[in-house]
C-alpha cells in the first residue's frame, strides 16, 4: 500500500548513498582481491579463529542484550534525581578507546584490581580475567550501554494506550510482560543482538589482550596478520569474505525473527504510573548493578587521567582539533546517509540491509582496499580526512538506522493514515509528523556518530601523515613512547570530548527531553 508518491529526489539520494556504501564495501574488498596472488586457502588455524570469533561474539551479544532488558525497563519506568546524567554516563564505555577501556576494566578485574581486593578480604581465591570470560566481560562492558539505549528507546515508544489499557485491566507483572513488553522486545531484541554480534565479530585488540594467547585469535586478527605478517592478500580477502558471510548470515537469521514494526499504534499519550513494591526494588537493583559495572572502571580511568590533563603537550591539543574536524564532517555525512536511507526505508527493506553492511566488512580490509584504490590516482595521505570521515560515517550508519528507522516506521504506522486523510504533502508530513518523532532518535544517532568518529582508530592509521594525527592516534603514540601518564590524560580528554560531543548533538537535535 502506498500512501503518497515519494519525491523523485529522495529516491535518487537513497540510491546515491547506496552506491557509495556498496563501492566502499565491495570496492575495497574487490581491490584487495584484485591485488592478491592466486591460490589462497584457509587452514585449520583459520577455522579455529572463525569458531572462536563466532562463539565469543554470540556469548557477548546474548549476555549484553539479556542484561540490558531489566536495566532498560528500570530506566524506562523510573524517574529519579540524576537519571539523565546516569543514562549519559552509562553510555560512555561504548565510546571509550579500546586500550583505555581495557586499563579501566583491569583496574577492577585485574590481578591487583578492586574485585580481587574484595575477594581477598572475603578470603576467596583471586580471579583471573584472561580467557574467554575476560573477552566476554569486556565486550559486555562496551556493548551493554548500547543495548540499553536501543531497548530503552523502544520501551519509550510503547503506546501509552497499551499501558493504560493494561493498568485498567489490572495486569500483573506476568500479564504486562506477556501482552505489552514481550511483543515490543520481540521487535527490538533481534536488532540489538545483530548489532552487538557484528561489533564483536570484528573485535581485535580486546580479544587478543584479554583472551590470554593464540587460542583467542579472531578473524579480524587473522586478517590483520595475513596483511601484515605474511603479506598474503588472497588469504586476507578470503578471511574477510568468511567474516562477511558470518555477519550476513547473522543479519539474515535475525531479520527472520524480527516482527514488522507496524502492528501497534498509539497517539503519544502519557503513560500511567509504574508498578511499586517488589518491581520497584528490582528496578533499583538492576540500575545499581549496571551503574557499578559500567561506572567504576570509568571512574578509575578518570582518576588515572585527571592529574595529567592540564599538562598535556601541545601536539595532543592539535590532534584534538583534527579529530573534531573529522568528526564534524563525519556527522554531516552520517546525517545525509541516515536521512536518505530512513525515508527510502519507510516503504521498502533494502535500505536497512544495506545500511547494516558496513558492520559486516572488516575495517582492515576497507582501509587497505581504499588505499589500493586511491594510491594510483592520488597521494593517500592527502585523503586522510575525507576517507576517515566517510568510513566513520559508514561505520556509524548501522547504529543510526537501528535507532531512527524503527521510530520512523512507528510514526508512519501511527500517523500516515491521519496525515493522508488531512491531505498533507510530503514536506508537511516530514515537518509535522515525522520530524517531531524522529528528532530524538536522530539526535541519539548523530551524537553517537560524533562520539564514535572521535574515538575511532581505524583507517586513519593507514592514511595519516605527520601533522594529521587524531587524538586516538596520539594516545597510542604516547603509550608507545613510554608516556603512560600523558596517555591516560589524553584518553580522559578524548572521553570528555566524545561524551560532550554526544550530549551536545543529542540535545541540539533531539530537543531537551532527548535522553528518554
Amino acid at each position, binding site marked *: 500500500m502506498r500512501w503518497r508518491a515519494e519525491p523523485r529526489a529522495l529516491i535518487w539520494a537513497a540510491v546515491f548513498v547506496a552506491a557509495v556504501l556498496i563501492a566502499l564495501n565491495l570496492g575495497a574488498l574487490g581491490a584487495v582481491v584484485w591485488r592478491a596472488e592466486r591460490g589462497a586457502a584457509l587452514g585449520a588455524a583459520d577455522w579455529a579463529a572463525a569458531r572462536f570469533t563466532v562463539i565469543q561474539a554470540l556469548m557477548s551479544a546474548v549476555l549484553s542484550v539479556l542484561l540490558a532488558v531489566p536495566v532498560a525497563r528500570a530506566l524506562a519506568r523510573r524517574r529519579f534525581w540524576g537519571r539523565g546524567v546516569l543514562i549519559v554516563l552509562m553510555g560512555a564505555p561504548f565510546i571509550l578507546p579500546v586500550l583505555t577501556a581495557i586499563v579501566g576494566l583491569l583496574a577492577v578485574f585485574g590481578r591487583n584490581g578492586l574485585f580481587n581486593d574484595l575477594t581477598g578480604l572475603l578470603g576467596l581465591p583471586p580471579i583471573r580475567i584472561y580467557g574467554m570470560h575476560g573477552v566476554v566481560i569486556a565486550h559486555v562492558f562496551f556493548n551493554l550501554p548500547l543495548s540499553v539505549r536501543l531497548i530503552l528507546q523502544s520501551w519509550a515508544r510503547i503506546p501509552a494506550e497499551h499501558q493504560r489499557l493494561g493498568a485498567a485491566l489490572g495486569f500483573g507483572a506476568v500479564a504486562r510482560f506477556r501482552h505489552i513488553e514481550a511483543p515490543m522486545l520481540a521487535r527490538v531484541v533481534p536488532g540489538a543482538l545483530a548489532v552487538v554480534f557484528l561489533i564483536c565479530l570484528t573485535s581485535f585488540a580486546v580479544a587478543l*589482550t584479554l583472551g590470554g594467547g593464540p587460542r583467542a585469535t579472531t578473524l579480524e586478527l587473522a586478517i590483520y596478520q595475513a596483511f601484515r605478517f605474511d603479506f598474503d592478500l588472497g588469504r586476507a580477502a578470503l578471511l574477510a569474505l568468511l567474516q562477511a558471510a558470518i555477519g550476513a548470515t547473522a543479519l539474515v537469521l535475525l531479520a527472520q525473527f524480527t516482527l514488522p514494526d507496524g502492528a501497534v499504534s498509539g497517539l503519544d499519550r502519557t503513560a500511567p504510573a509504574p508498578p511499586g513494591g517488589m518491581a520497584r526494588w528490582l528496578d533499583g537493583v538492576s540500575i545499581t548493578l549496571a551503574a557499578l559495572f559500567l561506572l567504576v572502571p570509568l571512574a578509575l580511568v578518570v582518576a588515572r587521567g585527571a592529574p595529567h590533563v592540564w599538562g598535556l603537550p601541545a601536539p595532543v591539543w592539535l590532534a584534538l582539533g583534527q579529530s573534531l574536524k573529522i568528526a564534524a564532517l563525519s556527522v554531516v555525512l552520517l546525517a545525509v546517509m541516515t536521512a536518505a536511507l530512513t525515508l527510502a526505508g519507510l516503504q521498502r527493506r533494502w535500505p536497512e540491509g544495506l545500511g547494516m553492511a558496513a558492520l559486516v566488512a572488516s575495517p582492515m580490509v576497507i582501509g587497505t582496499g581504499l588505499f589500493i584504490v586511491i594510491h594510483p590516482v592520488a597521494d593517500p595521505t592527502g585523503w586522510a580526512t575525507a576517507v576517515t570521515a566517510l568510513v566513520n560515517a559508514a561505520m556509524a550508519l548501522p547504529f543510526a538506522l537501528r535507532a531512527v528507522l524503527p521510530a520512523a516506521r512507528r510514526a508512519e504506522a501511527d500517523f500516515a493514515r491521519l496525515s493522508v486523510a488531512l491531505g498533507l504533502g510530503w514536506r508537511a508530513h516530514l515537518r509535522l509528523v515525522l520530524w517531531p518523532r524522529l528528532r530524538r532518535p536522530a539526535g541519539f544517532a548523530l551524537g553517537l556518530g560524533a562520539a564514535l568518529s572521535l574515538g575511532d582508530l581505524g583507517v586513519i592509521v593507514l592514511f595519516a601523515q605527520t601533522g594529521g594525527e587524531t587524538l586516538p592516534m596520539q594516545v597510542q603514540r604516547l603509550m608507545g613512547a613510554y608516556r603512560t601518564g600523558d596517555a591516560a590524560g589524553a584518553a580522559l580528554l578524548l572521553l570528555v570530548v566524545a561524551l560532550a560531543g554526544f550530549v551536545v548533538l543529542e540535545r541540539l537535535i533531539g530537543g531537551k527531553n532527548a535522553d528518554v
Partner: protein
Amino acid sequence: MRSPRFATGMCVATALVTVFVTTLSTALHAQTPDQPPELRVLTYDSFVSDWGPGPAIEQAFEATCGCDLVFTSAGDGAAMLARLMLTGARSEADVVLGLDTNLTAAASASGLFAPHGLSPALDLPVAWEDPLFLPFDWGWFAFVHDTRRTPNAPGSFVELIASDLNIVIQDPRSSTPGLGLLMWIKAAYGDEAGAIWQGLAPRIVTVTPGWSEAYGLFLEGEADMVLSYTTSPAYHLIAEDTPDFAAVGFVEGHYLQVEVAGILANSDQPDLAAQFMEFMTSDAFQSVIPVTNWMYPAVTPADGLPEGFETLLRPETTLLLSAEDAASLRDAALSEWRDALAR
C-alpha cells in the same frame, strides 16, 4: 519498474563518484614549480611521533639539505613492509627507515631496494655487511622488571620456567618484539624451542597485539615482567628519575634487533636519498636516537651515550639469526609457539 531504475541509478551514482574523485585528485596533484625538492621517508609510527626522533631529525636534515623532508608512517616495521609491497614500484617514498633483520630478507627479495654504497664504521655488537640496508639503531630484547615488586629475577629461560613469576609478551604475528622473542628462543634453543615454549606457557599472563599494550599491563602490575629492551629502564631513569626498573640478564644470551634503512630503487630523488643515508650515521641523527627512540645508536656520537645508559645491562652473549635464517625458520617457529600456547 522499481528495480531497473534502482540499477541505473546505482551505475550513474558510481560513475559520478569516480569522476569526482579523479578530478579532485588531479587538482590536488598540481604542484607549484618553485618548491624545494621533497624527500619522502616511509617509517614506523613511533618514529614520527612528536615524542620520537622524527621532529628533531627532520629539523637537522632540512637545515643542511635545502629540501623538504616528509615522513610518512605506517604502523610498525612489518606494516611498513606490507605498505611497500602494496604500492610496489609506484611507491612515492624515497627512503624506507625502520625495517629490522626479521624483515630484510623479504624486503631484499621484493627487488624494490637499491644499494646504498656506504660503509661507515658502525658500533654494533655484530659485524654488518648488507649492500641494501644500513643500520641506524639497535637494541637487545630483554625482560624488564620492577626491582621493588620482584627483587629476585630469574637468570635464564629455564629459571623463569621454574619460577612462579608472570610475564606478559607480544604476539609474534602482530608485533616486532613478539617476533623477536620467537627468534630469540629459536636462536638459543633450536629444536628445543618448542619445549621451552611449553614450559613458558603457564608463566604467560597474556599475549598482547603490540608492545604498548604489554608494557602498559606490566606498569599496571598485571605481570611481574614484560618483554621489552635492555634500554627500557633508561627511559624510567632519565625521563622519570626512577631507578627501580631493570632488564634481566639471561645466560642464554640476548637476541639483537637491528633497525635499518634502505633507498628505494624507484626514488625520483636518488641524490637526496643518498645524502639522507649519509646523514643517518652522522652525529646530528645519531645523538637524537638514545633519548627519543630509547635504543642504542648505530654509531656512538662524539659526546658518547647520555648519562644513565652506563647503568644498563650489557649482555655478554649476543644472539642474531641471519636475515635468511630468520625468514626460513619463521613459519616453523610460529607453529611451535602456537601449539605450545594454544593448549
